[in-house]
């Protein structure tokens, strides 16, 4: 899966699940401060990303370091790369 594909599908999660205007979905956008998600939304973000990318991330400690949309793209990219190596 290419990064472009990951960006497209991740942005779709933010648009569909959190009703965020696509124009706001820039890589630098801060998930909490700028996109308006809160602690409960993060649980749903994880569920939605798991479904969208067929990955398991609920118990992954790296989730805690995510701050921006770019962090999400990169995290999914790493997960997909790890998956390919297995």
């Amino acid at each position: 899966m290419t990064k472009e594909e990951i960006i497209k599908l991740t942005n779709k999660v933010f648009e569909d699940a959190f009703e965020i205007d696509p124009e706001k979905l820039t890589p630098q956008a801060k998930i909490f401060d700028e996109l308006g998600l809160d602690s409960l939304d993060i649980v749903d973000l994880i569920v939605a990303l798991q479904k969208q990318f067929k990955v398991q991330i609920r118990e992954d400690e790296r989730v805690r370091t995510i701050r921006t949309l770019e962090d999400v793209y990169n995290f999914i990219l790493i997960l997909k790369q790890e998956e390919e190596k297995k």
Partner: protein
Amino acid sequence: MGSVSPFGRGVAALTDGIEAGRSAVRKMEGWGQYLGLRSLVGAPAEMKDEKLIPRLNRRSMGRLSIFAVQAAQDAVADAGLDPALATTGRMGCVVGSTTGSAISISQAFETMLPDHDLTKLSSMQFFHCISHTATMNVAQCLKLNGWVMATSAACASAMQAIGAGYDLIRLGRQDVMLCGGAEELHPTVTGSFDVLFATSVKYNDTPEQTPRPFDRDRDGLVCGEGGGILVLEDYEHAVKRGAPILAEILGYHTCSSGDHVSESSRPAMVTCMHEALRAAQLEPSQVDYVNAHATATMQGDKEEAEAIAEVFGAKVPVSSLKGYIGHTLGASAAIELAASFAGIRKGLLYPTLNLQNVSPECQGVGHIMGGALKREARVVVKNSFAFGGISAVLVCRMS
């Protein structure tokens, strides 16, 4: 007053449907797939404009909570309440429902059980499913920081909510309470009555002919959905702000039959009506209209008709509104009270739709049949009964 009913959003839409003599009952698409579900009719409400509720509020709402919130928003607007009152600690809400969102509860099980996997559950599922989902969402969305409680007495939930709000105001603990109930239509809801042989099953192909409260050919209830909220306010508080006062609550009572979980109890109904009248310091002869619970079940209608006949005799006009909108369960008392008040303000006592031949066992009361009764009514009694042997009765005087 505010309501979302099978006739649409708003009390005016509700009374327009009633005055046109329409039925909101229809055959439910897709229900035929359920083995053993014999009743395929329902009275659905249309959900509209839900996206006007901000996402951060809406995400914790299942269908019934959206109905409750929209009804509450309309009730607040109708009462001309200053939004600033919400945060004084003197305004709260009591909103009931039979369960949390039936759709969300079903989805939670469908998500979790096939693989016994909780990782696919949304964080919001819990907030949709909990017993106090409607009242919690009304409070959060309207930013209320007064008393917030839920009643959970199945079909009497809204009436007990109104009774609880009335008591809080009488005790001086709150100035304004948003009270009522909400419910949603789902095969599991109708199914829960169907397994008890309490639903209408003979009219699947002629849905507009059922339910038939008090009628000879009634064969059970039809579930509906929606939300109803009434604004209860301390009298002096209302007068001081120049509120449009519709009616004054004079008395309320709720009691248990202590006898059977599903069989209706005439003695308990009689006791409840007498106690509500006693609290109102009124005699039965002073009552101008009884809005019956009457769901069109064989036993429930018989017991209620006998109870009303025992308390009021045959002179007081009586009707049930469930022929129009089905049984909106935990929302029913609030929606039906709102419709009754709106009708009375126009000088109309609405007839029981589908009541064509009074059942021999439902005789002896003043049934309103055919068309609306054009008569001034001052004192109104509203009955509400529920599984679990629960009775609840409210006595009001129109302003």
